[in-house]
């Protein structure tokens, strides 16, 4: 919780500093990874991501496709490993959602976190991240993507990113819930969003054994 407190403090500082801003909607603001525009793709309702056939490399160095968890409910997001604040918070938020589930629903859930920094987020580094965050390796997968594959996935998830100086990325922090067929059925557009609806969606998906 200490981490999220810091982030909120940063956010408050930035919001306070902004003078001439006509904010259309309440949004989050993170110091090291400024949130990019929401002007990117959200899939059409009912559109499965899986036909996009996005290729990834996972923490074990295996070549995988974005549909590796087809048939399970999935929480999916994108990040970069050296990100100081927003990305750890992203993982914290997902773990919090996971903790809210019944053991049965949790056993159904899979988590896929895709880095757009393939250069530095090597399999070794991704394994380290998984260890540091103490996530269940059977249900969580860390992966990285080439710039092109990350952009295809990001455009489908409504996550835009761009490299800025010092090896950092500016990016959207969007958490999406995919149903068993890969359709986005719930999403949180930024890190301050209420996770309640996502938790309920995941819980519901976890109950549906087909």
């Amino acid at each position: 919780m200490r981490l999220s407190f810091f982030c909120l403090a940063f956010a408050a500082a930035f919001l306070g500093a902004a003078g001439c801003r006509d904010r259309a909607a309440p949004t989050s603001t993170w110091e090291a990874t400024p949130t990019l525009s929401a002007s990117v793709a959200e899939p059409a309702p009912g559109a499965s991501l899986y036909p996009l056939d996005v290729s990834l490399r996972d923490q074990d160095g295996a070549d995988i496709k974005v549909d590796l968890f087809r048939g399970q409910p999935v929480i999916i997001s994108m990040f970069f490993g050296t990100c100081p604040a927003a990305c750890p918070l992203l993982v914290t938020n997902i773990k919090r959602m996971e903790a809210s589930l019944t053991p049965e629903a949790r056993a159904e859930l899979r988590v896929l976190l895709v880095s757009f920094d393939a250069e530095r987020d090597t399999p070794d580094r991704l394994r380290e991240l998984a260890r540091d965050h103490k996530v269940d390796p059977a249900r969580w997968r860390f992966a990285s993507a080439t710039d092109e594959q990350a952009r295809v996935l990001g455009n489908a998830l409504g996550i835009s990113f761009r490299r800025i100086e010092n090896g950092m990325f500016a990016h959207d922090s969007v958490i999406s819930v995919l149903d068993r067929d890969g359709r986005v059925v719930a999403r949180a557009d930024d890190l301050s969003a209420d996770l309640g609806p996502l938790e309920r969606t995941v819980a519901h998906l976890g109950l549906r054994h087909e």
Partner: protein
Amino acid sequence: MKVLSVPVIAFVVAASLPANAKADASMAIIGGGTYRPLFPASKTSTAIAVRPFRLDRVPVTNADFLRFVRAEPAFARDHVEPVIAEPGYLGHWESADVLGAAAEPEQPVVNVSWFAARSYCAWRGGRLPTEAEWELAAAASRTAADGSRDPAWRAELVRLYGKPGPSRLPHVGAGAPNFWGVRDMHGLVWEWVYDFNNAITTFKSGSDGLRFCGTAGADARDASDFVAFERVALRSSLRASFVLKNLGFRCAADAGAEMHR
């Protein structure tokens, strides 16, 4: 034959290349340079170095795209996955694989999504140009690699962009070639680029909120570059599955890559 002028050499070389590579004459070499984004990623990254690359001389046509759809039926409008293109994809064609009266072969293809456009370019062995590449190529006037400081050229661009869209799209290649031998960069259709959503254009981000004060001009590289604002505005309003009746694309390739048409 000891001394050949450059065009003669180019002709001889083109004539002796295999068909595959000869088709590559459809692409022009764009010399590298520096692109200064209208809204830089940060105060310290105001210039982006662009390496030499190749760019289609004209936008992709209906006929070009029809060849792709026939080869890759997953991109026919009756098969396309909803995540790849919204309804209306290739909606001006008579049917999934017939252009019909409303879509002439040599008109630029429109009503194509970013996902479909990038797949087309990959099918040809290329890719979509980055925003930096596209803008660098588009900065050329008829006579100079950088026409951005030429008042006459800029006036012409404003005139071109202000022209109401024709009821029927002209054929590709009708525009005069620019310095690089590329046509129709301005005034025919809007064009997808690889990183079309690079610009930060909502009021969401803490570091970027102030940029859009002063009718979005306060922090821009060059507030008088009116047509560049138009392009940023259009690109930032797009989503990758969108299709528009005046939005097409052209492909790029790395300088050494092998392309086929």
